[in-house]
């Protein structure tokens, strides 16, 4: 396992790090200076982080009701929930992204529904908008939060919520003080997966977000494949890695906190 980690993770990461400090005359910080010297790049980085957070919020708002439905369901319905959650993951991300192009376009069902309900006066496209991208990202990454959630809920006892109910707690109180703390380890795992997936999702960002919504993976792709400036691309990749890595590390630390995750 150690050997695999060295070959497939540490070595490429080391190469990426070395490239990020490479310059025409040797080791340099110029690539990082070039990235941070342009306020536009900083805006792109914050946009990427924001998209990650918004997707985490969106998937959480949808994932919790689905998780609760799973928890309240019988064995057969639970299998259906897991199966339906897995189905989108069986298709390529590219296919799902292009399906969203159809859904969000002027001729798509959202536009036609808004038009039919009289909410808009003309067909409206949600392509090349941040909201459209967010909708697509939430749907695409939803299984990443549902699966850890149901893994936790599958082995969660019903006795604790029932005891709370017997003690007179209302439904909302049970949800907030009993169920959500029980779900927290699964949510934390899901947040880590969703955030990491969203911030690196080049295909969806480029296809749905268009050129008006620029995110870090697009900058990296452009530097690698169009401008062939690999040292700058490596520096940008390191910045993305460190930014998302810091946030994921924080989430990982929270997930180990005994009181927060209900192991007190």
């Amino acid at each position, binding site marked *: 396992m150690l050997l695999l980690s060295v070959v497939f993770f540490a070595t490429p990461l080391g190469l990426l790090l070395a490239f990020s400090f490479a310059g025409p005359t040797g080791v340099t910080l110029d690539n990082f200076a070039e990235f941070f010297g342009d306020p536009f790049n900083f*805006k792109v980085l914050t946009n990427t982080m924001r998209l990650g957070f918004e997707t985490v919020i969106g998937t959480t708002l949808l994932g919790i009701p689905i998780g609760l439905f799973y928890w309240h369901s019988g064995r057969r319905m639970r299998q259906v929930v897991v199966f339906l959650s897995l189905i989108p993951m069986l298709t390529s991300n590219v296919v799902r992204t292009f399906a969203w192009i159809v859904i969000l376009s002027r001729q798509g069902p959202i536009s036609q529904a808004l038009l039919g309900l009289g909410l808009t006066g003309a067909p409206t*496209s949600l392509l*090349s908008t941040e909201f459209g991208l967010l909708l697509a990202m939430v749907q695409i990454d939803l299984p990443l939060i549902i699966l850890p959630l149901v893994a936790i809920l599958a082995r969660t006892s019903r006795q604790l919520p029932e005891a709370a109910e017997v003690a007179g707690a209302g439904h909302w109180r049970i949800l907030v003080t009993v169920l959500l703390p029980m779900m927290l380890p699964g949510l934390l795992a899901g947040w880590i997966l969703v955030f990491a997936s969203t911030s690196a999702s080049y295909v969806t960002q480029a296809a749905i977000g268009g*050129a008006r919504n620029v995110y870090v993976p697009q900058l990296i792709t*452009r530097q690698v*494949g169009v401008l*062939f400036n*690999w040292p700058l691309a490596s520096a940008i990749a390191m910045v993305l890695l460190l930014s998302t890595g810091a946030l994921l590390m924080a989430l990982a630390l929270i997930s180990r906190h005994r009181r927060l995750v209900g192991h007190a």
Partner: protein
Amino acid sequence: MNEFRLNRRMFGMLVAGAAASSLLPSMARASGGLVAATFPGSWEDAYRSVLTPLVKAAGYDLTVAPALSQDQLTKVMASPGAPAFDTLLISPGQMAIAIENDLIVKIDPTRLKNWSKLAPAFQGEYGPTVTVQIDGIVYNPDVVPKPKGYRDLFENPAYAGKVSWTGFDSNTAVMAYTQIAQIFGTGPDDMDAVFKLFKDNADLRAGVTDTTNHQMALYQQGEIAVFMGSTNNVAHLKSLGLNAEFVQPETGSPASPVNIHLTKGSANVDAAYAYMDAALDAGAQATFEAPPTEMFPTNSDVELTPNISSVLTRDQVAGLAYPDWVSINKYRDEWTSTFIALIAS
């Protein structure tokens, strides 16, 4: 529902399988074959079905590896000395980069039987031209009137909100923007004039896509009705049952030749020459000239179809505009960065 379990032995086998699959191109070459990079989609299908038997008849196995121009260069740059492909299929924009980075070598024309069938414009010292695309304006006649040229797209209200643009990543876009710079600015390098057009018009900025591939998808969805494209884009759209027409702008149509190049360090030079010759073969090019590929045949023995000759005749070939890609590539970084920031602002 059955539990999914992966033990150490299964994991080891999966890793070994994945590693072995990555060695397939090397194995293909070790067995006397070559790996030829080709554009994905209709190009890949056509080259695989038509050229594989021709190369086989010459005594070599052909592995057609689909990759976009940029990806071809990136992969070859990533493994200097042991290139991922024996031959590249790219346009002059990328060829200039390949030469600058010492990725391709000059060829020996005496080793190609079909060399003499090519017009001088198609006899490149770094490899033959297998087809030439003509860039211009692609439009949907069901939605918009036939545009006269680029000025029309900016000034005629009939096109407002229906035109899609893309950034300087695309060679086609770069060539169009140099023409637009000539119309609205002082010359082909006056890109500030182009940037001003986009800065002053929010509708134009809203119509910018990240790549040209996305434009095809948006056109299919009826999201856009006009984009900067090539004759091949029109052929592809028509093959999908869509109504699309091509217009040569009044400023002229820049030519985008597609060339085969021999990569430096190729271990199968003989097979590479056999492959180049197969791609120039009259029979093969006659097949590629038919839909859905509709490629202009560079072999002069092949008669042009009415569809092809309506866009380009052999007499027009010498008069086509060939942009100076070495000069363009000098500014490309700056233009790309400025345009991205402008559109996202």
